[in-house]
């Protein structure tokens, strides 16, 4: 496929021109970076042909967080007033900049896809809901038409099989506060979506796709037919609609994948992580996005919930998390990763402490709440769906499935307790001062630390000991020399071995 149509340069140029943007950031994911120069060159030509002269184009890559989100912080470094996002995206709402999304166009054989779709529908006999990766959005119209004609030619009527197709919410996203004043044209899309939602039908949305079911139907009644790769977007669909039957059509391999047990296992695993989070005393909040709308709100709410549950929260901003980064904070028993929906699921096997999503944190932190199998990934849904009410806690000891028994729950710090604590604080301090320091037990109990300070106190190493026993100056020592990959003394040792 040629790059002109693939990157839709005409549309981009027209968009820039129409809105009169002067500083435009072009955001490429790593795998498309190689095309960036060609795109810029061609865009420049297009803009020139539209007589737009003073537009500055900036290429952005290597985003701090997931490349599916709009890197608003990066864009504001160059004072850009809009972002053109290329490649796979999560279509999360931006918070300050308008963004145009170019999904790209992956190749697909329409006829083969239609055949699979039809066979599948005939075999299962449920109504079908077609969801797809955004890169296949361009082919959906074709598939629709092809399917109708196909079914017509085979059985003469379309009544038997008429799948429901999801729509793309929009390919342009405005930050909430500017959307009112902005050009009306692009808003049409969203209004359509809104009006649908307002009807009696139930509207659903995930990862930029929206659809609404006719009245009286539930999601469980449908067979979800996913066109696209096995990527995070698909994983989200599987998680969120875990009670639906789901098949995946892989367009590159041209095959139908019906065995999704591996994906289903994810849900069980997430359930385990929730149980683990219930046992946590110290929770780290990882900021995994600085762009997705509502992220600050989300962080505040989670922090509030954590404190109300009597646990300690610390907030970390560290870009994309990896095991080495997180292991620098071994005091955290669990991390809550606040990020866009498609980067939220981190397989935490390699991590010292599990990483969970805000939804999971909410299930874990509100006592008495039970996981019934529903799963919410996107913040907007989460904030809407959950009242954040903290019920009057029952005093029964909490059952921990990790320890396999009842454990005593930490006191939520109500005012009463705090007051008492203050009164007792002095007593406690003096008591501790008198206690004989048991050096052996220092490295023993990690699980009981309730705050970072407490954890630090139980470590055997507290930093440099300035008041060491030996005050006399040390003798002069010759240090190591050489490179980190193998110092000089090591090389010789290795040789003699």
């Amino acid at each position: 496929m040629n790059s002109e149509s693939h990157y839709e340069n005409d549309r981009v140029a027209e968009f820039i021109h129409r809105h009169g943007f002067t500083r435009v950031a072009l955001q490429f994911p790593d795998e498309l970076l190689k095309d960036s120069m060609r795109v810029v060159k061609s865009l420049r030509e297009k803009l020139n042909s539209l007589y737009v002269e003073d537009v500055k184009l900036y290429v952005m890559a290597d985003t701090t967080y997931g490349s599916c989100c709009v890197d608003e912080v990066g864009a504001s470094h160059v004072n850009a007033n809009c972002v053109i996002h290329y490649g796979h995206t999560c279509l999360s709402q931006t918070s300050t900049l308008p963004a145009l999304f170019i999904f790209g166009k992956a190749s697909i054989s329409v006829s083969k896809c239609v055949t699979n779709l039809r066979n599948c529908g005939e075999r299962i006999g449920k109504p079908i809901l077609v969801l797809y990766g955004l890169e296949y959005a361009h082919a959906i119209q074709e598939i629709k038409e092809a399917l109708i004609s196909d079914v017509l030619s085979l059985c003469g009527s379309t009544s038997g099989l008429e799948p429901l197709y999801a729509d793309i919410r929009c390919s342009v996203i405005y930050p909430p506060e500017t959307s009112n004043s902005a050009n009306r044209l692009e808003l049409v899309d969203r209004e359509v979506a809104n009006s649908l939602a307002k009807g009696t039908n139930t509207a659903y949305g995930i990862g930029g796709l929206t659809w609404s079911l006719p009245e009286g139907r539930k999601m469980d009644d449908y067979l979800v037919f996913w066109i696209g790769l096995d990527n995070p977007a698909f994983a989200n669909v599987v998680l969120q609609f875990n009670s639906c039957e789901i098949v995946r059509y892989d367009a590159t391999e041209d095959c139908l994948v019906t065995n999704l047990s591996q994906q289903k296992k994810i849900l069980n695993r997430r359930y385990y992580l929730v149980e683990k989070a219930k046992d946590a005393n110290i929770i780290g909040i990882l900021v995994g996005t600085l762009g997705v709308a509502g992220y600050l709100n989300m962080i505040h709410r989670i922090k509030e919930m954590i404190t109300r549950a009597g646990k300690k929260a610390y907030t970390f901003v560290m870009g994309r998390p990896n095991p080495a980064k997180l292991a620098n904070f071994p005091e955290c028993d669990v991390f809550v990763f606040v990020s866009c929906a498609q980067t939220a699921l981190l397989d935490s096997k390699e991590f010292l402490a599990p990483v969970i999503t805000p939804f999971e944190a909410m299930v874990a932190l509100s006592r008495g709440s039970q996981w019934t199998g529903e799963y919410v990934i996107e913040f907007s849904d989460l904030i809407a769906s959950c009242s954040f009410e903290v019920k009057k806690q029952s005093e029964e000891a909490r059952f921990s499935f990790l320890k396999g028994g009842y454990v005593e729950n930490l006191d939520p710090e109500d005012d009463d307790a705090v007051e008492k604590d203050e009164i007792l604080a002095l007593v406690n301090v003096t008591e501790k001062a008198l206690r004989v320091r048991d050096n052996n037990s220092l490295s023993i109990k990690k699980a009981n630390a309730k705050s970072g300070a407490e954890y630090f106190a139980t470590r055997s190493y507290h930093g440099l000991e300035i008041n060491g026993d030996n005050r006399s100056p040390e003798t002069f020592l010759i240090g190591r020399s050489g490179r980190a990959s193998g110092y000089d003394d090591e090389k010789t040792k290795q040789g003699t071995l």
Partner: protein
Amino acid sequence: MVKFTADELRRIMDYKHNIRNMSVIAHVDHGKSTLTDSLVAAAGIIAQEVAGDVRMTDTRADEAERGITIKSTGISLYYEMSDASLKSFKGERMGNEYLINLIDSPGHVDFSSEVTAALRITDGALVVVDCVEGVCVQTETVLRQALGERIRPVLTVNKMDRCFLELQVDGEEAYQTFQRVIENANVIMATYEDPLLGDVQVYPEKGTVAFSAGLHGWAFTLTNFAKMYASKFGVDESKMMERLWGENFFDPATKKWTTKNSGSPTCKRGFVQFCYEPIKQIINTCMNDQKDKLWPMLQKLGVVMKSDEKDLMGKALMKRVMQTWLPASTALLEMMIFHLPSPSTAQKYRVENLYEGPMDDAYANAIRNCDPDGPLMLYVSKMIPASDKGRFFAFGRVFSGRVSTGLKVRIMGPNYVPGEKKDLYVKSVQRTVIWMGKRQETVEDVPCGNTVALVGLDQYITKNATLTNEKEVDAHPIRAMKFSVSPVVRVAVQCKVASDLPKLVEGLKRLAKSDPMVVCSIEESGEHIIAGAGELHLEICLKDLQDDFMGGAEIIKSDPVVSFRETVLERSIRTVMSKSPNKHNRLYMEARPLEEGLAEAIDDGRIGPRDDPKVRSKILSEEFGWDKELAKKIWCFGPETTGPNMVVDMCKGVQYLNEIKDSVVAGFQWASKEGPLAEENMRGICFEVCDVVLHADAIHRGGGQVIPTARRVIYASHLTAKPRLLEPVYLVEIQAPEQALGGIYSVLNQKRGHVFEELQRPGTPLYNIKAYLPVVESFGFSSTLRAATSGQAFPQCVFDHWDMMSSDPLEAGSQAALLVTDIRKRKGLKEQMTPLSEFEDRL
């Protein structure tokens, strides 16, 4: 029908000298519940005629169905003794009324925790031994437990009827059998003797051994016969008792007592002559329906039969006659009242075992004196599911003070530490209840020395707790119980309908509460796991879970899952090295197996993280041949900081080593919990830190760099040290007649078990077989064995040790490798193990 009321019971509760708290303990199928029946019958709760068949204390449907006791059941009984029978009682008493709080316990080894819970709240134990099968493995276990709790035992040799009807042995042979049974029991008791408890051995001539036939409801102690003959011979009762046991012979021809068999054919042992033979005679006459002979005999004995009973025939007649002549309840009650301690006696010496706090504080004194006006000390030993689903009675024993309806109590849980707020609740008791068989009676209050069930505290008590008055803030809790079995058999459960998950979770919580031995946990893969002591135990738990705690919602259970351990066979073939993610830090390590017995020593807590380093290094150097200096360099134990693996520092002169210690420990805790083979726990491995190279800048050698590296290098050293799997092994004890041996051997062979001991029980056709059997193979073992021996063999399995599997899990296709693949598949891991190259780096 019932001969007493709750009010009567309540009244005697105040007479602390007239209370006996006792449990009935024995090997499975030796007749505990049946014997208990006759006691219950004597109290009038069930009819005398059906005693022995009802098994009153088996209250659950499945208990009745299987014919075994599953849960221990408490029952309070009231007796009024006659003045005559109490004549020789020397201890303190208040009137003739007695209250017996009796707990019938299960004999199957899977339910040993129930026995533990029962023993804690009783002061005496009636040990029941089958006269033919003798002292079995579970008899020994429960006796040991009892003596550990300072419970005074009395013995009854049960199933006497088998001697007369089944085996038809002659008197001398029977005597030898009984003598052996008693001797065997005494040997065990002597082993676990406790100076404070004094001599706990049992002697028939002192009246601490009874002979009973639970099924037929009769029993006697030598006292019965001694009384009868004392007047006849004109000797003292106690003198007569001595003559009725041991090396005392009587020749009716010469009418002389001798201490040796004179050889004359009429000379017989006192016991045989005066106890065994008369009984045998009566039984034989009854069985042969020689009624014309019977009536005069009975008249001589002073036994009066009702007219309608005279029409009975054969066995029924025999049962009735024996019950009237030698009622089980009289003999047993007398034995219990005379020889088992009252709470006020028992608590004097039990207080040290019970109370955790100082022995001279108000609480210890109140317990010691069994003071009803002292502060409340109540130990809840188990939670009993109530009839309304989801609620529990807290069942326990009042050691001092009194508990009453509406009283506000301090609930100190198992994790309570005096002075802290952890695991502590203050709540009011809604109702106090006493147990009368299948019925519960509410009473106003219960004073010390009694067992009691409390309503309204179940939310705050998890398994067990100590209760005291609200204001007694300085009370220490009563020591937690130690269980002799551990949960090794596990199944994964899930609900059939996904939306039942909350029900399942709730059910598992309730299950965990109802049984202290069950562990409900969750696997990494998100599966719920129920762990129990054995197959039978699990089966019962699953049934309870589904029917009682989940309201019948359907569950799917997996095949039993056995957990393995990962270990090493040799020292690592080389020192392995791993680099940190930033490549600036290097850790060098070697793994080696721990010395034999060391892992067990750590399990037992003889060596642990909290030891004094000097003591530890002494043990290590003397028993395990460690270098004294090295023993001081143990960094930590793991997993969970107490497990049977360790990290030892072998570095010399390395800079910043103290800085990374915490990180290495954290990495080790993580790695030792999930080994490299199948993510099972590690066991018996010592990791030696040989060398470390660290970045000069502190930020580059932080936890983030070192923790993952420590984990990797531990895996690498493990994999280079000939990794092996350990599997759990049961000790199986089987008792069976000779003709069943062939079947037993073939089943054991087929199940990879091996016999290491085979003994014939002297005087019986029974063989005692001890064998090791891998837990993995044990599922369905009992039923296979029963089938192969036509029901003659019944195994008792107890977890014994971990056994190394000889095959190499790294060699594709080997048995261990297949096992590893299976486990990984079940856990949802990649089927292939991560190769060594992922963990080890090269310079």
